[in-house]
């Protein structure tokens, strides 16, 4: 390890050290605000350390980690998402039972796993990152004990364990066929030997594991229960950071190995994309819980995202990146609105709980509406441009079936997003509400910033596109 190597992986080091420091400090009696502030500052510091790291890039740090424009960009996105989740968590956790310091420590470690995933260039790093992230999530999901949370956590634990075993087996099969675990070497080796049955079996098993982590159909069964049972900010983390990190890794894996050019795999992924879109959107129509609706919506969004994967090439890379950024903002913002409203006593989750919110809390309802419209892909929001770039990549590669599926599904999805918006804007019913509780400051700031960012990315994509173009050049 040279000094340059260390500088290149500075974001990971910062998170690791912060987790250790926070663990030591947790032994003393620290206030909740201090713990949250520590986590936020660690994330901000890691974000800032991307600047020196980018000076050292592109650089392969051992065979496991590749620090390049792609990993730096996604590290930045994941850290930004982690900051938003932490800020939202603070107000949500305030006054709850149990030690709160560990929540932020686990959040730091989970984010570390996500960042490792975004920079993995090797099966070992892939697995390590996934497990660091996964194990932290078991803890986070069940953090505030309750019947729902325990059920969700156990469900996630068992299924994630199965997925991990699939992943390891798949990796072993690929290794048996190709004799390498480095993504960058796989394409060449496969080209020499031709794709054998072991390779296909291995890739299929990796696909199953990735499909589980992304909550793509037909591996999505756990998602609604887990999102509903987990605390709202953890739901945001699951939907954004956990999914995003795996997506960032898969982008590198598939684009670098070119395995999506293999006909069977392409068909399988196409089927997963279409199934995710339809399953997510159609099942979302029947939900009365906002968190479950968002869970199904996030399943559908994976389907849209996979179109960019299948389109491939620079356009596909850029579209996938933009889509992920837009999806991050919208889904964290939507879960954030739920988070801000939920006090320490109960989760505000049923559609009826949102009635008339627009008249009592106009700004919060406005932000929530913007997030929902972005998820629905309406113009002037980041979600529209994300969907536009994805559709553009799909049309460019003449993937008509997928693009039409996207159009049809967007029309279906409108219904359940609008249903929430209608609830927000309907006249409040029941008794006149008393004085409203104050909204937590940190979370409100986070939601406001996300909303501004949402509109900015929806109107002026230039800067992010430039970054994404650069990231796509990392290995295309």
């Amino acid at each position: 390890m040279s000094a340059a190597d260390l500088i290149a992986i500075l974001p990971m080091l910062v998170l690791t050290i912060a987790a250790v420091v926070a663990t030591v400090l947790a032994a003393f009696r620290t206030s909740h605000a201090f713990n949250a502030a520590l986590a936020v500052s660690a994330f901000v510091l890691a974000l800032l350390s991307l600047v020196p790291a980018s000076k050292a890039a592109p650089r392969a740090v051992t065979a496991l980690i590749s620090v390049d424009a792609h990993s730096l960009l996604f590290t930045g996105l994941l850290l930004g998402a982690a900051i938003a989740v932490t800020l939202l968590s603070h107000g949500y956790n305030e006054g709850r039972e149990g030690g709160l310091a560990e929540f932020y420590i686990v959040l730091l470690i989970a984010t570390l796993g996500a960042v490792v995933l975004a920079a993995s260039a090797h099966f070992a790093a892939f697995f390590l990152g996934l497990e660091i992230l996964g194990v932290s999530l078991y803890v986070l999901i069940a953090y505030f004990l309750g019947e729902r949370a325990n059920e969700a956590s156990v469900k996630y634990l068992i299924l994630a364990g199965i997925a991990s075993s699939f992943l390891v087996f798949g990796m072993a099969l690929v290794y048996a066929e190709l004799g390498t675990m480095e993504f960058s070497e796989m394409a060449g080796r496969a080209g020499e030997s031709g794709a054998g049955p072991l390779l296909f079996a291995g890739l299929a098993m990796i696909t199953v594991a990735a499909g589980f982590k992304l909550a793509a159909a037909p591996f999505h069964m756990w998602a609604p229960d887990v999102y509903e049972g987990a605390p709202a900010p953890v739901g945001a983390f699951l939907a954004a950071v956990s999914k995003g990190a795996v997506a960032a890794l898969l982008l590198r894996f598939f684009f670098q190995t070119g395995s999506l050019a293999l006909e069977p795999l392409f068909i399988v992924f196409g089927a997963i994309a279409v199934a995710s879109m339809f399953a997510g959107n159609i099942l979302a129509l029947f939900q009365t819980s906002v968190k479950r609706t968002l869970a199904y919506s996030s399943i559908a969004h994976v389907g849209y995202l996979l179109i960019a994967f299948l389109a491939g090439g620079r356009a596909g890379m850029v579209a996938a990146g933009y889509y992920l950024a837009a999806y991050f903002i919208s889904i964290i913002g939507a879960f954030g609105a739920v988070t801000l409203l939920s006090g320490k006593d109960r989760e505000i989750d049923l559609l009826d709980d949102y009635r008339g919110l627009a008249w009592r809390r106009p700004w919060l309802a406005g932000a929530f509406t913007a997030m929902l419209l972005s998820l629905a892909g309406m113009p002037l929001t980041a979600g529209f441009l994300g969907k536009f770039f994805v559709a553009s990549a799909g049309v460019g590669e003449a993937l008509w079936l997928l693009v039409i599926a996207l159009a049809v599904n967007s029309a279906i999805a409108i219904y359940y997003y609008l249903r929430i918006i209608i609830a927000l804007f309907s006249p409040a019913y029941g008794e006149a509400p008393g004085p409203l509780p104050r909204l937590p400051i940190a979370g409100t700031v986070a939601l406001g910033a996300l909303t501004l960012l949402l509109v900015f990315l929806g109107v002026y994509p230039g800067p992010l596109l430039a970054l994404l173009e650069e990231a796509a050049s990392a290995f295309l």
Partner: protein
Amino acid sequence: MILAWAVLIPFFGGVAAWASTRLGGAFPRCIALLALALDFALLLSVLGRGDSGGQWLAETRLEWMPGVGAGIHLAADGLSLALALLTAFLGMAAIAASWTGIRERTGFFHLCLMSVIAGVMGAFLALDLLLFYVFWELMLVPMFLMIAVWGHGGRYRAALKFFIFTQAGSLLMLVSILGLYFVHGTETGKYSFDYMELLGTPMGRAAEFWLMLGFLAAFAVKLPAVPFHTWLPEAHAEAPAGGSVLLAGLLLKTGAYGMIRFLFPLFPNAAEAIAPAVYVLAVIGIIYGAVLALGQTDLKRLIAYTSVSHMGFVLLGIFAWEGLALNGALVLMVCHGASTGALFIIAGAIEERAHTREMARMGGFWSSAPKMGGAALFFALASMGLPGLGNFLGEFLVLLGVFGVNPLLAASAALGLVASVIYSLWMVQKVFHGPALQGPGISDIGVREAATLASMAALVLWLGLYPAHFLDRMGIKESIGATAIGIDSKAATGTGADGPEAVRITEHRPDMEGAAELGGIKGK
């Protein structure tokens, strides 16, 4: 920049109106009204420039996404300007119509209303396909909220239906826009969403046809053409009066405008190939809308179905793609906006006073509200095509143009006129004549409503009696866009399945003077 302001003023006016809610009272209404008046004056000044020699009276180009090939490109010719002026005008009418009807959340209401206006205005001026799409979608959300928040009983269902229908069409258009972008890019090596670039893109027959269908889906839903019209009666019936004015007067027109500006110039052969099918749908729409209007018991639904019938005429006029018929369609669009908008204002006024939309519970209002009755009669006559009023001129020109293309079509479309006489007079008779069902009757219209209706009547009269000026300045000339596309009228009478081998480039110089005289003579 003047056109960018034309779009931004309504939006900022809406924000200002919303912000002024705290000041209470009529502040939001006045601010919104002033903003639109300013916008109207601005657009008039563009019109006043006269011919700049070029094709566009005004043009604005700004950078937006150079990497993708999308820019902010706004331009106005006579057609755009006529509809943009109508937008500002009907926007003011909608505000006036909601003056007393909307008592709750007035600030937010005007924000929504002005956002719809901004979206429609942008759609009429945008010349970049991506920007056009953005504006096209932009009007949906505020319109949806207007129906969902200030509408009546079944408002949620109506608002959802409106949104999902139009959105489904729009998404297909988006796919088509992207398809066209790539076809053009691969053919010419230049990837751009700019209308002027995309005109005359060389493409295969099949590709052109499929891409055209995507656009047609969006425009046919918005227009609405039968069988995609089912969202309209519901949305109209449940929307507040101001919302109905915007819907009937403006949103439907964006569909027609899209066909004239985008569908035909971009896909001339495919549009012509599908024309026979569209003719049939248009004629069905004319007759079906009129017949269904006869069967309505709800006043607003009745007016909504008449819209379906009138827009069938517009569709017919556009697809005839012939100078007279096109200009007829334009005149009809403007007059339909004014007359149907006015009828919705009257329906809203009645609802505000009598608290019902059911015609069975109305009757004899003439004695208590003669001014309202007179206005209703005037607009009902306009709607049924009384010579001397603009709607007649529009319908007449459409029929004249279509007759040259296919006499049978013109004859069947004329049946719609017969039905329109029945439903218009029946409506007036049912609501204003007969025995008074509501004891004391209803209060008559006040100065505000009278002024609104009078200005709308003036527009209809002006276009009916002296259309030459309008058609000179804003009529559709031989060229729409950059290319003159004349459609071989013989092809339309055939099956049209294969379409003509080549598009005949002709110049249509419709004899406007003749048309104007005609309107004048009939008016006397």
